[in-house]
């Protein structure tokens, strides 16, 4: 009897030890992230928005560019509860001043935001990571050049720099490609890669003299292998957090540019374009401006929650 209990206890103890061993640093972080309610909600919102973006052509009720003459400036369906006669169940979110369905336009807008969130950030990451790694690990000329580039870019107010680049390239072939999408990629990439490169460089510098790098070098690993297999995994956490904040940053840049009238070209719908177009007739069709504003706010908030959650999960010591 006594022995049975002890065996069972030992077995339980064994199981816990194994379970502990299996929980790596990343699993720990994942656990903390999932426990963070705001981050989970944020992730769900992002997933939902991404699904809408991907399947927009299938689920959007109308062509976002189609103008329905007699059905202009319809109010959203819920205006009916406030006694509005001017609604149509076929246009749930109403129509804008050209009679275009706002719901469809909102859905198509999320596609642009998705692309803007992914492509420039990937470019920024690719350049920033490779330059930063080289500058940090090898040093020398690359390092000097990077530091000079950073000084210059940091002296500009970053959004104004993007505006300057985008405005400059607007009339060119590059500026006209894909309704102005390409030039926004370029603008965001040029301004943001230095930040990532600086971050990576700093991280590499703080890691490269640690014992495990020394050990890897001692057993004959080349610089490429050390950078990829030993340094990279150890500096990944801050990079992930940076990316989590860079994505909404890029989306925000696009919407600001489009709102100012130098971003994506109308009639292609993006939330910024919709606000820009609707703002002129704000007092007659406020919902055409408010609905995209709400969409931007929700998506950006979702990303902030996820970003905060990721930072707390990956670096429990940080406080801000």
């Amino acid at each position, binding site marked *: 009897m006594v022995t049975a209990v002890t065996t069972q206890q030992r077995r339980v103890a064994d199981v816990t030890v194994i379970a502990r061993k299996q929980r790596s640093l990343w699993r720990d972080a994942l656990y903390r992230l999932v426990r963070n309610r705001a981050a989970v909600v944020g992730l769900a919102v992002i997933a939902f928005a991404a699904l809408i973006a991907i399947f927009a052509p299938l689920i959007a009720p109308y062509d976002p560019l189609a103008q329905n003459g007699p059905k202009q400036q319809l109010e959203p369906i819920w205006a009916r509860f406030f006694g509005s006669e001017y609604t149509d169940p076929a246009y749930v979110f109403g129509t804008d001043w050209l009679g275009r369905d706002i719901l469809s336009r909102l859905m198509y807008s999320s596609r642009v935001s998705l692309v803007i969130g992914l492509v420039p950030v990937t470019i920024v990451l690719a350049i920033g990571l490779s330059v930063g790694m080289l500058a940090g690990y090898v040093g020398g000329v690359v390092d000097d050049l990077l530091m000079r580039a950073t000084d210059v870019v940091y002296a*500009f107010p970053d959004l104004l720099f993007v505006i300057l680049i985008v405005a400059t390239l607007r009339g060119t072939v590059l500026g006209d490609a894909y309704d102005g999408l390409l030039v926004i990629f370029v603008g965001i990439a040029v301004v943001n890669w230095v930040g990532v490169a600086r971050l990576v460089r700093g991280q590499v510098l703080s890691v490269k003299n640690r014992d495990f790098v020394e050990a890897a070098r001692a057993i004959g690993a080349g610089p490429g292998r050390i950078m990829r297999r030993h340094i990279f995994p150890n500096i990944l956490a801050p990079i992930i957090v940076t990316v989590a904040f860079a994505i*909404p940053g890029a989306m925000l840049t696009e919407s600001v540019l489009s709102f100012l009238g130098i971003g994506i070209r109308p009639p292609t719908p993006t939330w910024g374009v919709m606000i820009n177009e609707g703002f002129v007739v704000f007092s007659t069709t406020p919902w055409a401006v*408010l609905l995209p504003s709400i969409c931007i706010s929700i998506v950006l908030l979702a990303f*902030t929650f996820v970003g905060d959650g990721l930072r707390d999960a990956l670096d429990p010591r940080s406080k801000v």
Partner: protein
Amino acid sequence: MFFVALITFTLAHAAPGSPFDRNPNRPLSQETLDRINRYYGVDKPIPEQFVIYMGNLLRGDLGLSFTRQRPVVEVIGQGIGTTFQLGLAALAFALAFSIPLGIVSALKQNTIVDYLSMLVATIGTTIPAFVMAIFLISIFGVSLHLLPIVGWGTWQNMVMPTFVLGLGAGAFLTRITRASMLEAIGQDYIRTARSKGLHERAVIVRHALKNALIPVATIIGPATAALITGSFIIESLFNVPGMGRLYVISILQRDYPTIMGTTLLYALLIVIANLTVDILYGALDPRIKVR
């Protein structure tokens, strides 16, 4: 600064099209075009233009605005006062709510007060200024008719732009204040102060707060620069005749001298702000030595 000037100059001049081919319905004769180009000095090769520009810049001359037929210094001078006025009002507003909010939420950590103020801070930092402005306009301008939507000059005009501009900065400052206050409270000297029997208020105000506000004070410099350079969206939206709106308009009109002038001024502000931080740090916190 030199590089900023060089890059801006190159970018501005690389833009296709001249500022004078705007109106296709009234084409200018070649002769007139030549005369205009000569008048503004844009007939010379671009490197030469740059040298001339830099020479004039050192004498405080930013050239003539293409579209306004007046010196750029004068054009900017008209807007800069408004922009500073707006920026400083926003800064005052931001400080007024962020520091108390940050302190209170640090003292009441993990209570409902803390969560609420952090939620406000998160919303304030996340929602873009122009979206926030739209919400405010629709509530106070369109629905309630309490405040004028566009224009400048009366105090009612200032309320919404100041609020929107200050909110983002203030939300950021709230987070900083809270974090550094939390750190200060956890320090040994606070425990010492408590254990020698000081009043709780004396502990907080004299010991914790004094140290907690150092990071906050040093961030005010860049925050001010950010408020002044970041006001261009708000200025365009509310039609405030400041430097930011001037910048956006001159970019749309390809008014190179004005673009150059405003960009240089913005860059100068940022450089000054960063320098101030370095100096302030040394002065406020003797533990840090400026190298």
